[in-house]
């Protein structure tokens, strides 16, 4: 009964086109932001921040990125982890070549490197679709993974073949490296996520987002509206890879603190992100958050939550259960609810609006 729009009249097109047209939604998002910025860093333990919040924030950008490509534009990609890797290695090279430049700038710039690579591997998308495009992007995944291992210049000829994230400070506060405070890392990652989510939702709500969805739903008719297929698809690849690149840079610099060449950004991560998109909901921003939250929280809950309530479970078994649950849920959602958790959320909101009446 609190979630009801009665009395909220929209008198301008601008208010009708707002991303959160309901006052309750706007209040809700402000509360969530306040909790994320104030309550979480104050209250949450280091363990929660380290094992749930940091990987969640890093991966959610990759999920948004893949959602732009697969959910909004209808182009399937299995190269997500490869593009994340490009971001991570670009950021590493940039900050070791030019250590005096602010690391936050390099994290953002590394997204552009990833976008460039994404456009190159997106070129076949004009001619091929569906499964065949998936195979073509798989080639990108394997090629990039090979490059991360075989080109020692990328990891500065480190004998162990790994990236070691150096200490970088902004205004005297350590942001990356082993000595950086976890709360600082969390706030940095959160800010990246908030700003980039805002940008992504702006893009998909305007002309560009409509062109993407038009290409997804009926490419023949889209051409007839004057939408150029190649440009539209390549723009989707560029924006998607940009998000993956920033996500990869955050993943290594903020979350992991170091990465083994070629192991972190393997095909497994590509699939997990694709599953997160499907579980969260194709073509939905909030779904990307649900999907990323689900795949990050599930292993932690199984590994640490179940023993806490007295169910003995080893890490190895938990790992296998995670794979089974994600796999089963993906198949279930593809058959029953292609719009994933986001659709369930919508249904719940609709029920809440008419409560206590059934409709």
């Amino acid at each position, binding site marked *: 009964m609190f979630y009801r729009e009665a009395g909220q009249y929209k008198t301008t*097109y*601008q208010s009708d086109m707002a991303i959160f047209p309901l006052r309750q939604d706007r209040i809700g998002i402000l509360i969530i932001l306040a909790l994320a910025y104030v309550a979480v860093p104050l209250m949450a333990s280091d363990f929660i921040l380290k094992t749930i919040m940091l990987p969640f924030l890093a991966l959610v950008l990759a999920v948004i990125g893949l959602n732009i490509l697969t959910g909004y534009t209808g182009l399937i990609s299995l190269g997500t982890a490869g593009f994340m890797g490009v971001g991570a290695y670009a950021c590493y090279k940039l900050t070791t070549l030019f250590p005096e430049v602010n690391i936050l700038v390099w994290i953002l710039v590394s997204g552009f490197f990833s976008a460039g690579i994404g456009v190159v591997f997106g070129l076949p998308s004009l001619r091929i679709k569906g499964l065949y495009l998936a195979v073509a992007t798989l080639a990108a995944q394997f090629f990039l993974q090979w490059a991360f291992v075989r080109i020692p210049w990328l990891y500065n000829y480190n004998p162990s073949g790994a990236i070691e994230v150096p200490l970088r400070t902004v205004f005297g506060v350590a942001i990356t490296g082993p000595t950086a405070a976890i709360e600082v890392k969390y706030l940095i990652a959160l800010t990246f996520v908030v700003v980039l989510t805002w940008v992504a939702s*702006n893009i998909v709500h305007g002309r560009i987002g*409509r062109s993407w969805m038009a290409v*997804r739903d*009926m490419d023949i008719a889209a051409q007839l*509206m*004057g939408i*150029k297929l190649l440009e539209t698809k390549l723009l989707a690849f560029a924006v998607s890879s940009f998000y993956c690149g920033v996500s990869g840079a955050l993943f290594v610099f903020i979350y992991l603190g170091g990465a083994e060449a070629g192991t972190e950004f393997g095909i497994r991560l590509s699939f997990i992100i694709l599953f997160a998109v499907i579980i969260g909901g194709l073509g939905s921003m909030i779904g990307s958050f649900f999907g990323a939250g689900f795949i990050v929280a599930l292993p932690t809950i199984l590994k640490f939550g179940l023993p806490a309530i007295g169910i003995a479970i080893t890490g190895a078994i938990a790992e296998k259960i995670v794979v089974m649950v994600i796999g089963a849920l993906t198949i279930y959602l593809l058959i029953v609810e292609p719009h994933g958790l986001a659709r369930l959320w919508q249904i719940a909101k609709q029920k809440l609006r008419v409560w206590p009446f059934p409709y």
Partner: protein
Amino acid sequence: MRAPSATDIAAGEVILAVDNVSLSFGGVKALTDVSFDIKKGEVRAIIGPNGAGKTSMLNCINGFYHPTEGRITFKGETRPKMRPHEAAAGGIARTFQNVALFKGMSTLDNIMAGRTLKMNRSFFWHILRYGPAMDEEIAHRRFVEEIIDFLEIQHIRKTPVGKLPYGLQKRVELGRALAMEPEVLLLDEPMAGMNLEEKEDMCRFIIDVSNQYGTTIALIEHDMGVVMDLSDRVVVLEYGRKIADGTPDEVKRDQRVIDAYLGVGH
């Protein structure tokens, strides 16, 4: 309502001419040596039995197919290989025989998509959304709302079009084509599969579009009553060849047309 184009053509003059167009796919000849013209402001019907090449003709006009022989002149310009988006930019819009809407998008978004060519704010402004991109969006939204009022589809503005009944989908598709402010509107069987009332509504909209906006309309239709009432001139195709061309009355009396539709005794 429409901005004047560089090559303004007075009403009644030829806006689109099809000269000796042939189209073949391997050994199959879809069109053979077809010539006709469309004059600005008229309603031109293309009729013929199934498989006569009517849809192939439309596909040639808006650039999905390129004629194997012959040429198509639009607004005095002949382009041998016109791409669909170039046709759209030139002012040719169309609807499809099997509705080709963007199923996952709302009615409003579908019609807004028809405005894509008129919107030119860059990617940078879209990142910000508020500011110039929003002003542009609002200006076009105003135009789209006019079309929504015109077609009487206000109640389904925010419904995903995949959930709409067939008759309404056809109407939304017409709205999307109108949003492009076309000079030539190609309608491929706009009344197929509709009941009598829906047909009457659709006829009313077509007549209104023609009268209010002066849009040139080329229309494929199987309902002869509709064709005879709506169109100014009719071209009849059979097996990819033109067999008759003229006013509805002339065409109705043409022996070859009667034979094509009723069959001849052997």
